[in-house]
């Protein structure tokens, strides 16, 4: 806790830099719900329902929220693995929301990478670690053969792997090791931006720390931008510059992490913060939990008005009728709540 000042300095530097690398405008992704033998479409799951935010170059955006609220879908849509239902994604000034595969490959694929939430499923079971890591470089014709080898060694080293693992297949790794493979793969291309979907969830804290340090180092070194999806609020807090809180496909609150953690405005954020289990370390107080009543509504049939009103401890009549605006309450602090 002695690095607070330098941390602040670093952040202020970033904040001054107003070049946006990514702009998301009213992004929506609905999945059709099919039913019956004939698989007729009977409705849709509004997994992502109108996301708007901007990401500055070199910063880390944390994305937190309840399970199933659409974080992964948002991430995958951003990187255009899913076809957005509507909305724009502007990456480095180019609108990539409607590009086809070929264009994407030529323009942005190299620059945005993703770490998948499910590490095992995202690794080809028939590729060795080596070919998994060299594939991105070969694809983009980066480096000579020798350099590639070095780079792979370097990557392995960075994520804490022994070089002997190089010829192993994904199923021969432990869960955490697989997750690290995913991270190493994303880093292989030296992208401008990485969308990391729960990148450290399966890692023990030591390795987690190692990886997070690595990510931060790289950010400093290469001016990387991260969208960091995680449920682990402490990790998010540590790594992010600004944090978005999602609920049912929408962003409820979006602010600099200090603002958010120290003074959460949205009732949902407040509840979220209170639920974090904390190790009984000496001198640390366990906080009182705010238990949310009720269930997470179905994204197929989200509530009218504010989507959170069904579980909100301070909901009013208005909340069930009117969708709150996503407004900037303070500088760089956006909230969608009628309270403000």
């Amino acid at each position, binding site marked *: 806790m002695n690095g607070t000042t330098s941390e602040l300095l670093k952040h202020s530097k970033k904040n001054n830099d107003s070049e946006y690398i990514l702009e998301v405008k009213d992004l929506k992704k609905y999945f059709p719900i099919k039913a019956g033998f004939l698989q007729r479409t009977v409705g849709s799951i509004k997994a992502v329902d109108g996301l708007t935010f901007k990401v500055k170059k070199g910063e880390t955006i944390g994305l937190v929220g309840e*399970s199933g609220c659409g974080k992964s879908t948002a991430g995958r849509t951003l990187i255009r693995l899913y076809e957005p239902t509507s909305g724009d994604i502007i990456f480095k000034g180019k609108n990539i929301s409607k590009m086809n595969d070929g264009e994407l490959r030529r323009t942005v694929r190299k620059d945005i990478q993703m770490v998948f939430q499910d590490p095992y499923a995202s690794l080809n079971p028939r590729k060795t670690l080596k070919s998994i890591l060299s594939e991105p470089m070969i694809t983009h014709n980066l480096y000579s053969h020798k350099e590639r080898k070095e780079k792979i060694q370097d990557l392995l080293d960075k994520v804490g792997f022994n070089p002997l693992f190089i010829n192993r297949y994904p*199923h021969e790794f432990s869960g955490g*090791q697989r997750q690290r493979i995913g991270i190493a793969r994303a880093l292989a291309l030296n992208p401008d931006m990485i969308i990391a979907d729960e990148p450290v969830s*399966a890692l023990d*804290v030591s390795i987690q720390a190692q990886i997070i340090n690595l990510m931060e180092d790289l950010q400093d070194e290469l001016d990387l931008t991260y969208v960091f999806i995680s*449920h682990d609020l402490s990790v998010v807090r540590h790594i992010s510059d600004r944090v978005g809180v999602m609920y049912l496909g929408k962003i409820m609150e979006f602010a600099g992490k200090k603002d958010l953690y120290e003074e959460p405005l949205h009732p949902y954020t407040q509840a979220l913060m209170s639920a974090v289990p904390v190790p009984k370390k000496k001198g640390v107080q366990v906080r009182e939990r705010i238990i949310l009543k009720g*269930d997470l509504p179905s994204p197929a049939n989200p509530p009218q008005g504010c989507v959170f009103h069904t579980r909100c401890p301070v909901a009013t009549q208005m909340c069930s009728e009117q969708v709150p605006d996503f407004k900037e309450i303070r500088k760089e602090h956006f909230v969608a709540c009628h309270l403000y």
Partner: protein
Amino acid sequence: MTALLELKNLKTHFKRKKVTIPAVDGVDLKIHKGETVALVGESGSGKSITSLSIMRLIPSPPGEIVDGEILFNGQDLARLSDNDMCKIRGNDISMIFQEPMTSLNPVLTIGEQIIEVLMYHQKLSKRAASLKAIEMLETVGFSRAKELIDDYPHRLSGGMRQRVMIAIAMSCNPKLLIADEPTTALDVTIQAQILDLMKELSKKYDTSILLITHDLGVVSEVADRVVVMYCGQVVEEASVDDLFEEPLHPYTIGLMGSIPSLEGDLDRLYSIEGTVPPPEHFPAGCRFSPRCPHAFDRCRNEAPVLREIGSRSVRCFLHDDKEATK
């Protein structure tokens, strides 16, 4: 208190052409009735393989339980016939797997995958089982359980899949629940809910839980005892309070130090220096010695044993004398 499950010198090795990978290399572990034991440790230290060994679900070949006993209720699971093992799995011991995506059958609906267990072990009718399944899904935090029951795994989010796995494993009120990183993909609220559920299960049915996790917060919240693994071996074992109060093993100490905190801001997170050697090349002495800040010569040449120190045990020469004094 008799142990429900006791692992004695369990060794599970993967045999490849030239090398043998001792993924689990002599693990001793006890879980009492109604007790929740947390298994923590370095990524790749053999936690999942230990749990799979208990379930006798090691991919074989190449994996094999080469030595040791797995005493469950006095019965050695390692030597049980496949048929008898079937009776124990799912009913007496059930498991939540680490990778929810690949562990769920992609072509069966969520409902089918839960219902089949209920019908099989609890002998419920299809109707009753599906009601129960919906109930289970609701208890793990699903709001639209009724619709979900007809959904397929690939249409769920990571956390949702994980909860489905939990629902499946918990549905039969097993005597022992092995939960391999059950909450990694869960947000804090749901996680809290799941943890409460586990506590409740443990209280209500006297279920023992072997909880594998990295989240020390979770450990401190639900576990009674903690077992720390490093490189296929148990390096430390203690009650939660003792462990958090005073970790003994240098690895445990390092681990504790690596936790990012919700409060303060650190410039850099602490992490243990160095990397884990691959299982086929464990150092001859203490396996943590190359990374240990306190390592001395003996550590590099001689393998320490797990020594009891009061109610806890640790595998480290640093604490040799302590035991001796006792």
